[in-house]
C-alpha cells in the first residue's frame, strides 16, 4: 500500500507514525515497520536488520535486554507492540513458549530452510543459526586425540586442568541437559561431579576468559561456543589467546557435538505479522545466513549455505541429531543438578 505513495509522503508518514508512537506507543498506526524484543545484543544483528530495511523498506525497531522481556510480553498481552522475540539459546525459546506469548506458524519457506531438529514441532520457534559447544585445548600441552568426548572431561588425568564458566550459564545448562538426555540423571551427576573436581579454579568469566586462561597456563582445556574462536581470531588483542588453543568438536565417533541455536518466535499479539514473517523469511535465506556466518562466525542453519571461510577452515563436524525441544525438557533437571553438585562453589 505504501509503495504506491511518493517517497516524500512515505517519509512524512514514517515521521508521523514515529512521533505518534513516541507519545503513544501504539504500533497500530505504524504499518511499515516490525518490532523486535531481543535477548541478543543488537550490535550482532543490526547489520542484518539494516540489509532487510534496504531490501524491503521495512524499519526494524528493537528493544534489547538480557532478561525480563518475556514478562513484559505477558503483561502487555494482546496490546503488545512486539512482533518477534529473538533469543540466544534454547532455554529462552522454551521460556516464551511456556509463558504462552508466542504463536504457531506453519510456513513452508521456514520449514524448507530450517531442519526439523532446529525448530519447534508446533512452529512456535525457529532456529536462525547454530553454534557448537566445542572443547578448546592447549596447542602446547594437549596432544591431538587426548580429548575427544565431553565425557572425557571427567577423566582424572585432567585434574586441575579444566577451566569453566558458571555451570548455570545457559550454554552449559543446555550441554548438561543434552548429557542427561543421552545418559540419564545418575551418570550425568557423576560426570558433572568429576568435572567439578577437575576444575583448575572456581567457575568464573565467560567463554573467552577460559581460553585466555589456557594461554596463560592456568589450565589446559575448556568448553566454549564455536563462534568465540572466530571472534577471538579476528580481534587484535585476543588473537594470541585463540592462537594458543585448538578447537575440538567432541563426540564425533558417537552421537555428535552438542549444538545450540539462536532463534526467533512470532508473538501472540504481532501487530505487524506480515512484515514479521517477511523478516523471518529474510533471515533464513542465503544472504542473511551468510552474513551471520561472516560477521558472527556462527553456522548457517539453512542447509547448503556455505559458512564463512574462517569457520569452514575449522573443518566440518557431526552435530548431535537429538531435537533441541527434547533436550530443553531436561533443562530444569540440569539447573538443580548444578546446585546439588555445587559446581559453582
Amino acid at each position, binding site marked *: 500500500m505504501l509503495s504506491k505513495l511518493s517517497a516524500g509522503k512515505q517519509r512524512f508518514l514514517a515521521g508521523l507514525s514515529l512521533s505518534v*508512537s*513516541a*507519545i*503513544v*506507543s*501504539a*504500533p*497500530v498506526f505504524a504499518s511499515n515497520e516490525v*518490532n523486535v524484543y531481543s535477548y541478543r*545484543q*543488537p*550490535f550482532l544483528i543490526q547489520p542484518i536488520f539494516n540489509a532487510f530495511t534496504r531490501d524491503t523498506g521495512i524499519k526494524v*525497531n*528493537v*528493544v*534489547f*535486554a*538480557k*532478561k*525480563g*522481556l518475556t*514478562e*513484559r510480553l505477558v*503483561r*502487555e*498481552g*494482546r*496490546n*503488545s*507492540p512486539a512482533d518477534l522475540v529473538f533469543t540466544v539459546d534454547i*532455554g529462552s525459546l*522454551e*521460556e516464551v513458549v*511456556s509463558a504462552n506469548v508466542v504463536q504457531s506458524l506453519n510456513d513452508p519457506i521456514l520449514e524448507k530452510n530450517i531442519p526439523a531438529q532446529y525448530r519447534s514441532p508446533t512452529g512456535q520457534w525457529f532456529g536462525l543459526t547454530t553454534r557448537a559447544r566445542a572443547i578448546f585445548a592447549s596447542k602446547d600441552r594437549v596432544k591431538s586425540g587426548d580429548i575427544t568426548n565431553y565425557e572425557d572431561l571427567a577423566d582424572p588425568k585432567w585434574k586441575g586442568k579444566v577451566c569453566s564458566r*558458571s555451570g*548455570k550459564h545457559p550454554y552449559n*545448562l543446555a550441554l548438561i541437559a543434552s548429557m542427561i538426555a543421552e545418559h540419564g540423571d545418575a551418570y550425568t551427576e557423576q560426570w558433572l561431579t568429576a568435572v567439578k573436581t577437575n576444575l583448575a*579454579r*572456581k*567457575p*568464573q*568469566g*565467560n567463554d*573467552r*576468559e577460559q581460553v585466555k*586462561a589456557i*594461554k*596463560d*597456563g*592456568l589450565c589446559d582445556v575448556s568448553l566454549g561456543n564455536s563462534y568465540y574462536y572466530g571472534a577471538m581470531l579476528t580481534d587484535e*588483542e585476543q588473537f594470541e589467546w585463540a592462537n594458543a588453543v585448538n578447537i575440538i568438536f567432541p563426540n564425533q565417533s558417537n552421537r555428535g557435538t552438542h549444538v545450540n541455536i539462536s532463534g526467533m518466535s512470532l508473538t501472540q499479539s504481532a501487530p505487524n505479522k506480515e512484515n514479521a514473517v517477511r523478516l523471518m523469511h529474510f533471515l533464513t535465506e542465503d544472504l542473511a545466513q551468510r552474513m551471520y556466518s561472516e560477521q558472527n562466525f556462527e553456522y548457517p542453519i539453512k542447509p547448503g549455505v556455505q559458512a564463512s571461510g574462517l569457520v569452514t577452515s575449522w573443518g566440518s563436524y557431526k552435530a548431535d541429531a537429538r531435537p533441541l525441544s527434547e533436550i530443553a525438557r531436561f*533443562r*530444569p533437571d540440569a*539447573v*538443580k543438578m548444578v*546446585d*546439588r553438585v*555445587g559446581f*559453582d*562453589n
Partner: protein
Amino acid sequence: MTHNATLSKHPIARLSYWVKNPWLASTALIAAIVSLPIFAVFWLALFPKDNIWPHLLETVLPDYLANTAMLMLGTGALSLCIGVGCAWLVTMYRFPGRRLFEWALLLPFAVPAYVIAYVYTDLLEYSGLLQSSLRSWFGWQTPHDYWFPPIRSMGGAIIMMSLVLYPYIYMLARAAFLEQPMALMWVSRNLGCSPLKTFFKVSLPIARPAIAVGLSLVLMETLNDFGTVDFFAVKTLTAGLYDTWLNMNNIGGASQIASLMLIVMVTLILLEQFSRRKQKLFQPKNQAQPLEQLPLSKGKALAATSVCAFPVILGFIIPVASLSHFAWLYFEQSWTSEFVTHAINSFSLSVAAAIATLVIGTLLAYSARLNSSGPVNAMVKISSLGYAMPGAVLAIGVIIPLAAFDNAVDSWFRQTFNVSTGLLLSGTLFALLFSYVVRFLAVSSGAIQSSLDKVTPSMDMAARSLGASNTRTLLKIHLPIISGSLLTAMLVVFVDCMKELPATLILRPFNFETLATYVYQYASDEQLETCALAALVIVLVGIGPVILLSKSIASTRQRQS
C-alpha cells in the same frame, strides 16, 4: 484518634476527612502509586510455579545466605570506615590537600560498580598489568611460582563495591559534621576529652542518623547488586533470585526471594531507628561560631593526606585512567554517530527523574513530618523501599500495574467506542521515569527527611500561629532552610540515574539507548574496551554534579552562620 473512630463508621465522614486534609490525601495517593511496583512483586510472590525452598535449602541457600551476609557486612564496614573517617578528617583538621579532598572524595560515586569491577579485573588478573610486571621483575614463569590474591572473589567484591559506595556515607556524614554545634565540642574539650574522644562521644552520636541513612543506602545497593557479584563469581541471594527466575523459569519464586530481601532490609532499618529512639537533636537557631579546623603535626598531616588520597586514587583516578586508555585504543569502535543521541537521552532522562524524585520526595517527607504516625506514614516508608529490590525485579513490578492500567483503558475503549488505545504508558519514557522515581526515592527522601528532622518544630508552630498554611510553611520556611539538602538529594539521584541499568533495559521504548544500556551490550559480553568511551562519558558527566554536590554540602555551614 477521634478521627479514626469517625472514619470506621461513616464513609461520608471518611471522605470529608480526606478532603479537609489535602496534604494527607495527596500524600496517600502518591505514596500508593509509588508503592504499586513493590506490592506487585509481593503479589507475584504469592504465585510461585514450584516451591523453590526445599531444593534451595538442601543445596545452595546456606551458601547464598552466608555470602550475602558477608558481603553486606564487609561492604558496610569498609564503606563506613572510609566514609566517616575521611569526612571527619576533611571537616575537622587542616592538612595538605584538604580543600581538594573535600570534593574529590565524592568522585568515585560517578563510577558505575560494573565498570570498576571490569577495570580492576583487567589490571589484577593473571595476565593483567600488575601480575605481568611482578613476573618479569621476579622472574616467575607460571601461575604456580607465586601466590596472588584472586580478584574475582568475595574480598574483591567487597573492596570494589566499597570504593564506589562509600561516597553515600561520606557526603551525609560530612554534612552532619558541618552542621554540628561548635559549642558542644568546646564543652566536651573543656571537660577534658581528647579530640578522638570528642569524636566518639559527641560528633558521632550527633551524626548518627545521617550516617545510618548513608549506610542503609550502601547496604541496599549491595543487596540488590547483581552485575558486580556475578562478575566476581560470588554467589549471593541475588544470584539465587536470578537463577530461580531465569533458569527455573519461576518468577513467583524469584519474587519470594526479593520480598525476603526487602524484609531483611526493613528489619535492619527499624532496628537502627529503634536503638536511637530516645535521641533527638534540633539545630540551634543560629550558629554564630564558625567551624574551627585543628592543625595537625607534620607526620599526622601526611598520614591524613594519604588516608584521603587512597580512596580517590583507587576509586576514581585508576578507573578513569584505565578507561581513557581503552577509549584511546578503541576509539574507532567506540565512536558512533548515535553516540551524542545516547548521551542526550541519558542526560535529559536523568534530569527529569531527579526533579520528579525531588518533588515527590519532598512532598512525602513533609507529610510524614505533619503526621508522625498512622497508615500514611507507613505508606511513605514503604514507597521508599524500591531501592532495596534488584532493579530487574522492580522493573517487572513497574510493568505489572502500568500494563494492567493500559489494558483496562484499552478494553473500555474497545467496548465503548470500538477503538483500541493500545498501550498508553507501557514501553514509553513515562514508564522509565516512573521506575527511576520508585527506585531512587529512597535516595532522595532519606536525605530530605534527615535534614527536615533537624528543623525545630517551633518553626512550624511559629509559622502556623501566624496563620500560614502547611503549603506556605513548607515553601517559605522549610524549603529555604533545607535547600542545601534538596540540591544534594537531586544531584545524587541524577548521578544514580545516569548509571541505572536493569530497569532501563527492560522498560525502555524501541530503539532507545542511554549511555548505560549502550555500554551494557558490550560489557555484558565482557568487552568493555570497545565501548570505553561511553563508559568514560558516564563518569565525566557525573563529575559536574559531584562537584556541585560538594559545594552545596560545604555551603550549609556558611549559610547558617
